[in-house]
């Protein structure tokens, strides 16, 4: 091997320094193990930093009717009951503790009058539930855990003389392969982005916390890191992805100017009173309240407006329906010719709140529109449209330990893991998911390592395989430019696997993806290895292709519409389909899809719902048999 190779050994390697990765690392270190945290960008810059609205946790600080059962119910409804119920249960029960714990590490959330953590309204949540700091909650989460890691390092320095003895951050490093010894994980392999030099971590436990896949789509709120690396790593290591057909299009992304198209406009704008209107000035969301939600959402403006002050006696405004409903409604309005000049709809707070209040509650939105679009949101409405935001699908894991299905020693948490959110995630449920399952993944990995009798070893052959893959983009003859291949891929997913899908388009997408796959295997990197984005993209492309193929194939199988999967040719939700999750696996050449039976709720959770509601989601057969 001509390339320089750095070698390290850790008990646990965490890939990802977003909320999930940092929380996992803290837990594994607190369990007494040595931990490496690896991330593609600088420490503290992970995508989590962009989260705005808040973290959902049923603390009951603003409305004391709230509790884990209500949160659980909302989460299942949001996901149209396809959620892994055990994950939804753990999440609802544990998120308050995870938020309170952040305070002990220095987080400063906004406060209620009593001095408790304030909570705000968000789509799909029955009570004000999102702990927040203005509209920069993700930054607070990241910074708090980044500083927690520093605190642990300072302690190690005092005790052992070396801050990085047990926990070290490897920033600007990309992992390209999971190494295995038989059926067990033995380490990970990758390259320093800065130098292009290769690096090997020997470790018997690996936590994937790599976040989302948005960069496979043209219009997205995600940062460049969202290339689905963890999804692809799990597939290639022999793991399974579930629910990949469910991709969340956030209803409100910026639509103008073109270069910022997709950047998020936080849901808090609607939670704090913002309304959606079309070119005729109509608050169109009243026309799109689905049958299953009629009991909870106001059908007239007067009631909807009263709700902001009196939630016990009024139904919620339909602007706060779950995201999939709002995104589809906007899509329909624009298609019907009632859109705004730039091809979105109007979102207005200027007529709803005093200017000072808008600036206080939504400072970064004010800033964002002022600086990027020359729009003062205290005076004029925003123009917004759907943007690819979040992937519900992900690595199939054990709910309690976050252990990946089928690969001993592999764990996954955060956006890269699947199951928790079913077919659609509620806003705010991701940040709390990161904390709850990040912690569980760290604990799961630690327990696994401690119980392991024989440590797996890394063979030269595995190193050779991983190393060859990294150098390939340089050795290819006459291949295509990775940037143009990426653009082509983004157009295909956007147009054919996007917010509304049909069988013909999905099949077309699959053929086109197959074609790009062949060409991408030949994508060529120009220049040298040092900090070379063209080279990085050539490798990331493979991940985005595996993810896109998984999405397209799962979407083709599911002949119904549910949450983040809408089929024009099968517009109805069908309880028959609730009985299945799609699992995708990689057979070395292509993605294969399998329908796996989704479990019924256990009795004690069945009791949390009215039979009338359950009938909308479960088959008669299932209900007759009763809970699990």
């Amino acid at each position, binding site marked *: 091997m001509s390339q320089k190779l750095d070698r390290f050994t850790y008990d646990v390697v965490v890939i990802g320094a977003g909320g999930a990765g940092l929380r996992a690392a803290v837990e594994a270190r607190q369990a007494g193990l040595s931990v490496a945290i690896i991330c593609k*960008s*600088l*420490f503290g*810059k992970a*995508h989590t*930093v*962009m989260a705005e609205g808040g973290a959902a946790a049923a*603390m009951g600080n603003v409305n004391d009717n709230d509790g884990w059962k209500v949160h659980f119910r909302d989460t299942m409804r949001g996901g149209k009951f396809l959620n892994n119920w055990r994950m939804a249960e753990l999440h609802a029960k544990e998120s*308050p*503790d995870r938020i*309170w*714990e952040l*305070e*002990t*590490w*220095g987080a*400063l959330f*906004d*406060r209620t009058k009593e*001095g*408790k953590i*304030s909570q705000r309204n968000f789509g799909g949540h029955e009570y004000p539930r999102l702990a927040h*700091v*203005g509209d*920069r909650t993700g*930054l*607070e989460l990241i*910074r708090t855990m980044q*500083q*927690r890691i*520093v*605190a642990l*390092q*300072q302690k190690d320095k005092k005790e052992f003389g070396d*801050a990085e003895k047990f926990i070290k951050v490897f920033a600007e490093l990309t992992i390209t392969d999971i190494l295995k010894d038989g059926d067990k994980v033995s380490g990970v392999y990758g390259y320093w982005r*800065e130098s292009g030099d290769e690096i090997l971590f020997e470790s018997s436990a690996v936590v994937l916390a790599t976040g989302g896949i948005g960069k496979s789509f043209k219009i997205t709120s995600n*940062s*460049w*890191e969202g290339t689905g690396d963890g999804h692809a790593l799990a597939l290639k290591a022999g793991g399974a992805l579930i629910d990949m057909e469910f991709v969340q299009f956030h209803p409100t992304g910026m639509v*103008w*100017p*073109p*270069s*910022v198209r997709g*950047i998020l406009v936080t849901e808090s704008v609607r939670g704090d009173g913002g309304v959606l209107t079309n070119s005729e000035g109509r608050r169109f969301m009243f026309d799109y309240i689905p049958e299953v939600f009629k009991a909870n959402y106001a059908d007239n403006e007067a009631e909807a407006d009263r709700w902001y002050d009196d939630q016990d006696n009024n139904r919620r405004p339909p602007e706060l329906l779950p995201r999939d409903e709002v995104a589809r409604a906007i899509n329909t309005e624009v298609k019907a010719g009632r859109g705004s000049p730039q091809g979105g709809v109007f979102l207005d707070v200027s007529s709803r709140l005093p200017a000072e209040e808008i600036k206080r509650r939504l400072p970064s939105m004010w*800033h*964002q529109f002022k*600086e*990027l679009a020359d729009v003062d949101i205290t005076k004029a409405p925003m123009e917004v449209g759907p943007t690819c935001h979040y992937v519900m699908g992900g690595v199939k894991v054990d709910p309690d330990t976050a252990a990946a299905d089928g690969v001993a020693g592999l764990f996954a948490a955060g956006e890269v893991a699947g199951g928790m959110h079913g077919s659609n995630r509620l806003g705010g449920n991701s940040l709390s998911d990161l904390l709850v399952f990040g912690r569980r993944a760290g604990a799961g990995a630690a327990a696994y390592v401690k119980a392991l009798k024989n440590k797996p070893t890394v063979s030269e052959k595995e190193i050779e395989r991983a190393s060859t893959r990294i150098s390939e983009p340089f050795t290819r003859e006459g291949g295509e*430019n990775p*940037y*143009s291949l990426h653009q082509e891929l983004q157009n295909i997913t956007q147009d054919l696997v996007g917010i509304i899908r049909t069988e013909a388009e999905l099949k077309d997408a699959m053929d086109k993806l197959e074609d790009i796959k062949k060409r991408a295997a030949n994508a060529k990197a*120009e*220049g040298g290895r*040092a*900090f*070379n*984005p*063209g*080279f990085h993209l050539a490798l990331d492309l493979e991940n985005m292709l595996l993810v896109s193929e998984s999405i397209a194939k799962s979407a083709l199988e599911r002949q119904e519409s549910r949450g983040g999967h809408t089929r024009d040719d099968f517009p109805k939700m069908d309880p028959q389909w609730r009985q299945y999750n799609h699992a995708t696996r990689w057979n070395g050449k292509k993605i294969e899809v399998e329908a796996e039976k989704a479990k019924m709720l256990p009795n004690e959770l069945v009791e949390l719902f009215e039979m009338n509601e359950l009938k909308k989601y479960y088959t008669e057969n299932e209900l007759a048999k009763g809970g699990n």
Partner: protein
Amino acid sequence: MAGKVNLRIWRGDSKSGDFKDVQVDANEGEVVLDVIHRVQATQMSDLAVRWNCKAGKCGSCSMEINGKPRLACMTRMNTFEEGETITVTPLRAFPVIRDLVADVSFNYKKAMEVPSFEPPADLAPGEYRMQQVDVERSQEFRKCIECFLCQNTCHVIRDHEENKKSFAGPRFFIRMAELDMHPLDTIRNRKQQAQEEHGLGMCNITKCCTEVCPEHIKITDNAIIPMKERVVDVKYDPVRWLGSKIRKREGI
């Protein structure tokens, strides 16, 4: 602004480098980072530039644009004159890695030197009570996106490599102020620490840091000056020092 623009990009590494002039398309509403990306996609596929969110939220894309420390993703192309050549260079106060990417590890080392938040031992999670007005002062500093533009611009280190050892820089003065003003932090001598161990005294309040902060944090007025004033109090009036810490504890 639409049509061609002239960009002068610094290319090179820690050993050598030079400016390269390019012409590239720019469309309406674009920012400098968009144009750099277009150069990357069409003319220099190995041009190194850091970025993440492209929304001014992560602080990755810091560089110098016409000599001014800026976020490339928040610098609109229509702020330049028609036909003006836009010069982009890496942050000057830090060693260059390649092209527009600088080695900012100095800042992570300094972060490690600030003692962490120390909560009261007798308060269980969930029992923390703080008033909005009391957390707001620290919250202003927690808006920091760690773009390190203030660090880059501060003349104490920009022009004097030798000061780096003993000077934490404005980003970490606001971190110390944040902890000092945190209603529940129990470490009592943060101001002295700032003065004696982190070089607060070397700051001569030029306010250049405040001017470049993309988060509009009033670094000098709200953090550095109060920290300096109170250091003076503390040094000469131990009774007042004690008083200020007792008041802080009453916030519980």
